[in-house]
């Protein structure tokens, strides 16, 4: 049993979680783990091993078939609609398929989380271009996603995920479509966010990414529906 001080530092908690799509075999089997606030976690596994599925349980796109998922200390099975969206606003998600709104410009796509949070329009118009120019999209403020390259769309998705400085960042293959120079820049951004308090979880099948990084991190690995802890940080 965790005491209160420990419990409050746990941001994500899975207890005997299983996930199954329809009548298919279970993708995730009896998974138990927890993520501490302020940690930096890599989630690896072969393609099809269920990394995206695991993340989708965390960003509340679906409920587990069995077991218990809790976020920020709240069991998501017993949460009201309004509270669910409050939890989602504390998350930043980089979806593997980006999920950008094709009819909106880069600026408006990235502004969505701020507008949802009720940030004033002047602030939105100040912060979004700032971030976009940092991430190398200054020239594409008014471009629609369909006119951008895959790597540019990925950066747009990342900008949208971090614009509101989330408590928990879930990034699904965030460097899958960019060259190694941009990939390092993105990882650097995540590390900076992590330093100011964002808990980061990155799902990737690219294990080189982890080796390059010289930071304290957790390494979780999915295999055959089970989760293995490969690496624990030195300081936690």
């Amino acid at each position: 049993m965790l005491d209160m001080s420990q419990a409050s530092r746990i941001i994500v908690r899975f207890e005997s979680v299983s996930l199954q799509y329809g009548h298919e075999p279970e993708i995730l089997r009896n998974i138990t783990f927890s993520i501490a606030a302020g940690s930096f976690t890599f989630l690896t596994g072969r393609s099809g091993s269920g990394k995206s599925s695991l993340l989708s349980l965390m960003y509340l796109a679906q409920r587990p078939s069995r077991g218990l998922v809790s976020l920020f200390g709240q069991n998501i099975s017993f949460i009201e609609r309004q509270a669910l969206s409050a939890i989602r606003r504390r998350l930043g998600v980089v979806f593997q398929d980006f999920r950008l709104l094709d009819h909106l410009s880069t600026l408006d796509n990235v502004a969505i989380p701020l507008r949802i949070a009720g940030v004033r329009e002047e602030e939105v118009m100040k912060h979004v271009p700032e971030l976009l120019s940092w991430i190398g999209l200054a020239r594409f403020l008014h471009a629609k996603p369909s006119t951008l390259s895959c790597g540019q769309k990925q950066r747009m998705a990342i900008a949208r995920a971090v614009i509101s400085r989330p408590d928990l960042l879930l990034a699904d293959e965030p460097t899958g479509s960019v060259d190694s120079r941009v990939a390092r820049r993105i990882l650097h951004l995540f590390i900076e966010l992590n330093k100011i308090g964002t808990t980061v979880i990155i799902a990737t099948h690219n294990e080189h990414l982890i080796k390059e990084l010289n930071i304290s991190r957790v390494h979780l690995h999915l295999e055959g529906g089970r989760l293995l802890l490969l690496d624990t940080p030195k300081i936690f």
Partner: protein
Amino acid sequence: MFKRHSDLPSAGYLLLVIVTVVVFFSTLATASTLILQGIIERWYHNVSGTWTIQVIPVLGDSPAETQRQMNSIMRFLESTPGISVVQPLSPQQITQLLEPWLDSTELVSNISLPRLIEVVPQNGGLLDSETIFVELSEIFPNVSLDDHKAWLTNIAYISCFLDLNLIALFSIMFVLVIVATFFVTKSKILMYRSIIEILYLLGAQDDYIAIQFAHASLMQGLHGGLLGLSLALPVLLLITGWLASHLEGDFWLTLTLQPAQMAMKLGIIPIGVAWLAWLAKVSARLTVYKVIARPI
């Protein structure tokens, strides 16, 4: 002025078209009701507060004898306290009145016509038509009196009916706009399902999405309303122009006398438009709450 960012694509103009049509017909209906009300009001004013005394010539009397009897009735009326105006209609006036019904003046002049006297009782006078009639008919048995009560009651009914008609029409229009907004919003929600899902995943609350739908409906309602109005006004001018050239002068006077009054009463229509737009806004918002199902 009402510009506001939306995360949803603008989808079609069905609601705008519906509101345009609704406002177009409501404007025409209101204007024609106002014109009719104007005519009726004029009739009412002409007729109320006057009595008509009808003197039927006694069979065999010469016109001169009838005229003598007319004169003594006039004297009697003039000496009765509480009467302010006694005005006989000349035989020519009566012939003119009847002509449209009987077609030829010649035919009319051949029949022995009743003579008419218009009587206006003093304003607020206590004189009642019944007393005068009883007194008159004691002396002159061939006299009848019409205080237009039945006629006035009918006019009041017609006027009331026109009002109810307009209210019914507006109610139907309002219901139509509510129903149209519901279905338009519902189909938009289904169309944009994937976008709405993304917004939810990014933390949007129901309100955030509902307000966007509501604002879109408000704008379509306002634009549709203005469009409907600007289409209806030229048509209205055409119709009144046509009426002016085809109606008898007396009728037309009723209309041309009160354009200012008309304009003021037509001012109800922009208010109605704002109301419709607001209605579209609210029903869109309620529809979102009703229809939306979250991805989790």
